[in-house]
């Protein structure tokens, strides 16, 4: 292994956003950034995707909201958030102090709410992109149905596209049969990038009480358990679309992130792993850099989508 002593390029551009490195914090797992400021160096993170934001503040679901599963975490937070007003007043200004890209994850119960949120945020400064959550499984009336079919995806993405000048990332649900078809619809509607995936719908039962372990009954599965499934979806989608894909699902270490990049992701978001180690993202960035150095890769772009397929025997 020849060590190339020149620092490899880790910068990527994802749907109109220049990222200093390809490892971001995933929405809902990093609060509004400030929560992790005492525990990690936010300046080393490629970008922070903030907790899903709706127009009004939301209380979220009753508790319990969390249940651990083998190598996984079921959550049904129910999109508790401070609402756009307080986000702009207190959260965004605090976050702007850090040298990292700020991507604001948004959702609504109706198309009109999505549009209002996008419009209002578009007046603010310091936001690098909006990430449209059309895929959260935990709100009964919200999100889910928008991302369930290609036409409904096309509809909501077009509507928000017209409401904002910010780069628009669209976050897809894995709870579909053909994610590539949804991805193509989002692209056709003007998405600048695709984030995939959100959590997988799951259930856990407490056999003593015979009740679901979550007050919301079902929840979204995240963590290492889902990595092979999410990675397969990123690979399928990256082959089909022109716009960049941001890979999400179970990424805990540099090796995991590199799998996604090799499968075709331009960047990755790290979620549940932050809970296990607040320094997961800086460690991933360092690990990617080491890998590039050790493999003599000068620019991370040479790695994106570089998966070698075996010749099939007949």
């Amino acid at each position, binding site marked *: 292994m020849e060590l190339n002593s020149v620092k490899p390029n880790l910068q990527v551009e994802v749907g109109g956003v220049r990222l200093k490195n390809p490892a971001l914090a995933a929405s*809902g*797992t*990093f*609060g509004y950034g400030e*929560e*992790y400021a*005492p*525990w*990690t160096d936010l300046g080393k993170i490629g970008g922070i995707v903030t*907790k899903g934001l709706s127009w*009004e*503040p*939301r*209380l*979220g679901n009753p*508790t*319990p*909201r*969390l*249940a*651990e*599963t*083998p*190598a*996984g*975490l079921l*959550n049904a*937070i129910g999109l*508790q958030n*401070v*609402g756009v*007003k*307080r986000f702009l007043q207190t959260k965004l200004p605090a976050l702007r102090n850090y040298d990292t890209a700020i991507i604001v994850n948004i959702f609504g119960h109706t198309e009109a709410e999505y549009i209002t949120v996008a419009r209002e945020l578009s007046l603010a400064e310091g936001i690098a992109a909006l990430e449209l959550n059309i895929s959260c499984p935990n709100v009964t009336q919200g999100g889910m149905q928008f991302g369930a079919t290609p036409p409904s995806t096309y509809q909501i993405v077009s509507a928000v596209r017209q409401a904002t000048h910010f780069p628009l990332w669209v976050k897809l649900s894995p709870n579909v049969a053909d994610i590539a078809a949804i991805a193509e619809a989002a692209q056709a509607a003007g998405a600048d990038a695709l984030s995939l995936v959100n959590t997988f719908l799951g259930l856990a039962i407490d056999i003593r009480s015979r009740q679901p372990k979550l007050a919301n009954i079902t929840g979204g599965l995240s*963590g*290492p*358990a889902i990595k092979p499934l999410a990675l397969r979806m990123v690979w399928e989608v990256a082959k089909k679309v022109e716009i960049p894909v941001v890979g999400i699902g179970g990424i*805990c270490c540099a090796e995991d992130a590199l799998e996604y990049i090799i499968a075709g992701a331009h960047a990755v978001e790290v979620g*549940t792993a*932050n*809970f*296990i*180690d*607040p*320094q997961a993202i800086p460690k991933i960035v360092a690990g990617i850099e080491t890998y590039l150095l050790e493999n003599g890769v000068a620019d991370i772009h040479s790695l994106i989508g570089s998966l070698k397929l075996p010749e099939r025997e007949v």
Partner: protein
Amino acid sequence: MDMMEAKILSLIELTSSYFILELEAPKVAQSAQAGQFVMLRCGPGYDPLLSRPFSIHRRQGNRIWLLISVVGRGTELISLSRPGAQLEILGPLGKGFRLIEPGRSDPPAQALLVGGGAGVAPLLFLAEELAGRQVPLTVFVGGKTSADLLAIEEFEKLTTKLHLSTEDGSRGEKGLITGVLGDVLEQDTGFRQEIFSCGPWGMLAEISRIAEERQLPIQVSVEARMACGVGACLGCVIKAKAPEGEDYGIGDYRHACVCLEGPVFEAEKLIWN
């Protein structure tokens, strides 16, 4: 302060279901306040996945002690670790107990510490801090059986006023520790009494009711299932009264993060039903 490797200095089984873990964790030990907690990983590998929260039981120099009750897979795995090995730890986290400033009140203040089961964990740290400030202490320790009465010898070093109770009557008074507390409160001590408690939710609710009746200040350390421990995941929320003008709350309550606003709360700020 960050996620750090803490070396296991000793692991002492108290009974089949409780053990004390001694860790070398200089940063935590030096900055910890009574009532704060740490998140501890159970071992390598992603199953179990999440770190587990534990109150700081004691600290001295560069060392901290945790008092751990074995209730499931994570605590069982921790109980199997090998002294000398490293465990990943994050902390100190959360808001600890607001301590009594001695000499600030008239009549002088007295601290009543009430713990149930592993709930005594943060109370020993608290008792040591208060004793250091010469605050008079009365300690109540309850459990199902005598095997659930923990840290008794340590408390005996700090106070002569120690009340014990077990549900099966195997040690101390037979019954719940809340009953014992009620009886003691009947007597007028001439002190301004302040209660500090940690234990199961039902016990805390009952003590809060007793304290409210007598208008005594009370701080409780509550538990919740946690993922991050730092306020990021919103998994650990509890219902708290919504302060006026606070638009985060909707209706008459809001969701407060136990890990960030707590684990110690003034009981009156929570919704107990």
